[in-house]
């Protein structure tokens, strides 16, 4: 049973979520909190009173010294109990963290893996996803801890009330009444504290950006060193930092003052109650021992409640805000079947048709594709060319069902693409992305990921690696195909950009998908490797329908048909020879590029 479900969450759910991980621990924590509150107040007060009164009787020679042994032992034991108990909650919380992490983190990852792709590209929802993922367990445990502190404080105040009410009832009632504004003050200050944190966050993000993404990264080292901007950017870092510092400190000052004022206020109420106890002692209504016991208890309560009330409220406000984020996060659209594996046996392609397809990104303002219509036949090679931003990559995103909010029809074998089950649709297309993935796992697994539904033999993988001319790189890998790639492991070996791209190409070669989309597949390859890929192309892609997206026109000559895309529509189409003869946009582009090679 998953814990995370799309519904409204509020601060009470810090307990609810924790309980679903382990009811026993949460209940134990609450019980311990009550015990932790009662021992230093109630128990110590009674033990002290018993001991002192007995000791005074010893002095008055009413009883033997031996009569004081039992009260003394009780007093020591009470303290011992208080000391031993306080190490248990930390231990239980560690266990709860263990359980929550193991339960929530996998659930969270599953939710993320199923998100609709638009939420990944949209920076607002992506921010939300990152915020929630980074802090889920911490915020819930923090909130639970705050809740427990509130329970403990309530129990401590109740204990004080119980001790006093028997002696001077009005002082006890006064304490309870005066606790109301104290609580209100704590709530206000806690919220204010949180608001300041949110305000400072603006500057914090700025200075963290300088320090994490500009001044200390590997990728930026060339520009940073050559342009020598580090002193200037460090200066800006310090400025943004000073601003955040200022905002946080202003809030800190305010909350410290209210916190300590509340502590002092509580202490004074306690002392006033003690003041009221003096006369009963003088008149013999209250024993000296009880007086001392109550004084000790009052100070214990002041120490326990004074400082922690406010920070507990601040933590709960934080948790409340976070759970709002969680509610929003769990309400994001998901894609059915997103985590499924592709079907092991893809359906053969008979015809792929775009009929009057128009598309606008969910956050976009105008159509990226406008009434696009074309027809692809099985086994043929197609090229889509055109300037950056013309809509070439969008066609790939629609074919891979990353977006399905298009108008018009995309028909595979005459059936609308959206009507196929996820696994079947996934098995139809493989893509070599422009920003291909560099999986930090073994070379063998990197390639085998191209066809997860079928088991590939090591021989087959080796053959593919050689086919995409990864042979040289392979020879340098210490453990051959099983070498972990990247710098994740100490034994790992990183590949150069071009080699990674060949790995990505290899993935699509092992795929059994009938349609292959190559989105600028050779951008990082050197001329010889690029040419090799093109020459092997016919051989490697034999029988497959390919869609090459490129702005390097040399490669498009391989295509049986070329579509020239401009501003979301197809402006020219035909074979290389036909388009050259038309002497239109394509011919002009080709002329510009080939000029370099004359």
């Amino acid at each position: 049973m998953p814990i995370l479900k799309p519904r409204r969450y509020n601060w009470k759910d810090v307990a609810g979520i924790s309980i679903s991980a382990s009811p026993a621990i949460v209940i134990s924590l609450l019980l311990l909190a009550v015990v932790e509150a009662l021992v230093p107040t109630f128990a110590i007060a009674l033990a002290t009173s018993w001991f002192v009164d007995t000791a005074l009787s010893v002095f008055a020679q009413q009883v033997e010294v031996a009569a004081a042994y039992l009260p003394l032992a009780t007093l020591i034991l009470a303290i011992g109990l208080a000391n031993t108990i306080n190490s248990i909650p930390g231990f239980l919380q560690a266990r709860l963290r263990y359980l929550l992490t193991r339960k929530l983190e996998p659930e969270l990852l599953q939710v993320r893996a199923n998100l609709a792709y638009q939420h990944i590209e949209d920076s607002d929802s992506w921010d939300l996803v990152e915020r929630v993922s980074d802090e889920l367990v911490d915020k819930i445990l923090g909130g639970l801890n705050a809740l427990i502190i509130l329970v403990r404080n309530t129990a401590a105040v109740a204990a004080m009330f119980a001790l006093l009410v028997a002696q001077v009832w009005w002082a006890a009632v006064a304490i309870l009444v005066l606790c109301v504004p104290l609580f209100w003050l704590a709530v206000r200050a806690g919220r204010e504290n949180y608001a300041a944190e949110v305000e400072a966050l603006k500057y914090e993000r700025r200075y963290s950006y300088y320090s994490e993404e500009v001044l200390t990264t590997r990728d930026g080292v060339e520009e940073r060193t050559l342009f020598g901007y580090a002193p200037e950017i460090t200066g800006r870092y310090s400025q943004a930092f000073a601003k955040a510092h200022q905002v946080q400190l202003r809030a800190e000052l305010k909350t410290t003052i209210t916190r300590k004022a509340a502590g002092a206020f509580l202490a004074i109420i306690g002392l006033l109650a003690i003041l009221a106890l003096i006369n009963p002692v003088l008149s013999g209504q209250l024993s000296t021992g009880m007086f001392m016991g109550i004084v000790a208890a009052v100070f214990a309560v002041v120490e326990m409640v004074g400082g922690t009330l406010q920070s507990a409220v601040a933590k709960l406000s934080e948790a409340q805000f976070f759970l709002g984020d969680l509610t929003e996060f769990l309400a994001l659209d998901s894609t059915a079947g997103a985590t499924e594996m592709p079907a092991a046996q893809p359906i053969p392609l008979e015809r792929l048709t775009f009929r009057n397809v128009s598309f606008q990104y969910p956050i976009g303002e105008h159509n990226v594709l406008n009434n696009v219509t074309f027809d692809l036949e099985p086994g043929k090679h197609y090229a889509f060319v055109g300037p950056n931003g013309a809509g070439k990559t969008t066609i790939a995103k629609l074919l891979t069902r990353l977006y399905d909010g298009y108008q018009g029809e995309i028909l595979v074998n005459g059936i609308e693409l959206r009507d196929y089950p996820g696994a079947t649709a996934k098995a139809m297309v493989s893509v070599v992305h422009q920003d291909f993935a560099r999986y930090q796992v073994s070379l063998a697994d990197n390639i085998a990921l191209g066809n997860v539904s079928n088991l590939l033999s090591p021989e087959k993988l080796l053959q593919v690696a050689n086919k995409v001319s990864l042979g040289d790189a392979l020879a340098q890998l210490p453990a051959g195909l099983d070498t972990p790639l990247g710098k994740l492991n100490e034994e790992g070996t990183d590949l150069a950009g071009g080699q990674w791209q060949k790995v990505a190409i290899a993935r699509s070669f092992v795929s059994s998908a009938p349609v292959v989309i190559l989105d600028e597949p050779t951008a990082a390859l050197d001329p010889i490797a690029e040419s090799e890929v093109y020459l092997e192309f016919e051989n490697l892609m034999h029988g497959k329908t390919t869609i090459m997206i490129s702005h390097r026109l040399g490669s498009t000559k391989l295509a049986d048909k070329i579509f020239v895309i401009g501003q979301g529509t197809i402006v020219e189409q035909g074979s290389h020879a036909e388009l050259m003869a038309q002497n239109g946009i394509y011919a002009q582009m080709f002329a510009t590029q080939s000029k370099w090679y004359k």
Partner: protein
Amino acid sequence: MSVTVIGGESTRARQAKEHKYGLTHLILRACLDYFRAAKGWAAVEQGVAVLQALSWTAAIIATQRLFDTITIAANHGLGFQRVVAPLGVLAVVVVLQQILSGAESYIFTYNSYGNSGKFMADFQRKLNRVPAALYEDAEFLDEVEQSRECLEYESLGVFTAICLNFLTSYAVFFAALGVFLFRLSPLLPLVIIAAFIPAALSLFAKARVFAELEEDNAPLRRRYEFYQDAIASREFFKETRLLGGFNYFYRLFIQTLGLITENRWQAERKTFWVRLALNVVSFLGLGAATLLLFQATMSGSISVGAFVAVFAGLTQMFSLMSEIVTERFSEASEYVGQIKQYYQLMDMPEVGGRHGKPDFIHGIRAQNVSFTYPGAETPAVINATLEIEDGETVAIVGENGAGKSTLVRLLSGLYQPDKGSVMIGGLDSADTHPETLYRETSGVFQKYQRYKMTLGENVAISNTLNPPDAHGITKALTDAHFNKGGTPLDTMLSPEFGGIDLSGGQWQRLAIARGLYRANQFIVLDEPTAAIDPLEEAHIYQQFEQLAQGKCAIIVTHRLGSVKLADRIVVMDSGEIKDIGTHAELLSRQGKYAQMWAAQAAWYENR
């Protein structure tokens, strides 16, 4: 760049210097830095801490007075006013305690938080002065990451505060209370100290457990994060989804999650027993101390009121002690490793050297240059010799991994060669100060940066010595064909910071504009047009040709068509320079270049 093997053996032989980073050294250094950064406020903080410690003892004495008075009052019928007086004193002490503890906590936040910013700025400056080649070393990058966290989460500040607090707060409190207790019963302070010796010893066990945990979990955590990213990060999301790779990475994710949480739990369990044992020991100490007090009370040497007040004080003292040992000290000991790492980084040798002025009459001269990346086994550039005359444009071509980018970094002075020498404008790159060395050099790199700053800042960042010049910025943007001409220069280029995003091609043009904006006599272009479409690319190369006029220029590119604009072409293979010549010369030699040229040009013959 060649295949770089990052091996476990690639230690930087630091063990020899280990003693330099002993605990006392770290504590002293951290405290000095703390005072240096926080100035007078550090002294105020410690002063308040001392007063606070004294107020704790004062509270015990005031309580004792109150109890003594009330005992006498109950027995001998003193007046109400006589009892109110000690109660009033106690009230004053308690309120004072709240004020002091408030002041202490505020000043601590002020200092520690403020210091973390100052230390971070120092750290950033330091990282800018270490050799650039270090950034190719995974071990170094890990250390940078850890040190940054050490500053960001204020580990250093908290560590120092704990060390200082130990002296000014705890030690003062124990001393003051010790004197008070000694007067009651001379054995008392001794019993208390003895009770804490085993507790302090058990602390080391805890510190070791957590150090081991960190060692085990750090590499696991990196893998854990990667598997998560492979499924759900922006970078991998669409490819993993389409491949159906979820199950594969999810299995790895669950495995690592299991290991990490289990390791952590084991450590928690071990330390729980340590802590419990410690509590029992301190409880025994408290019991013994109470018995001593009891004896003193029964023998009449102290009053019952004193017994209760001191008993409460002892309880406070023991809970403080166990707080110091189980929380503060173990927190501090968890940080020691990070802090050591931080100081080791801060002590790394810097790039420095003479100042002067490069004169490109002397061109650029590389003599028998070799270079191996830190941690790599094979050199990336071997014995390269190359001279670039004043005003000459040189192109470097070769296959992936042939060492082109490394050679460019050597020629521009970003890297210092292991063997041989590089003279840039007559200055030796090995002993010239970076400010001098790069003064006349600009560049556009393969890994150009997308700064989340305004459009204007994105350009002007290449020259921060002079105030930004709007005219120059606009000109650079126009020259680079940045065709969002209407975009105001103060547009923020980052949705994260409330601005807009650019396409890949636009970002690349922006990087070119950045390179052009920096005044230079030597420009490096390392695959400057990979993400730009061909029509634009042609324009930009023509522009380059004009811009490189009369300057030293190096172009690295895969598009052989574009190298024809170079005066000479350098052909690299496996880290070595195989051939140098003009386009025509190289074609006629029928070597590697001719082979590459034929391979690429064939695609552009009109069938």
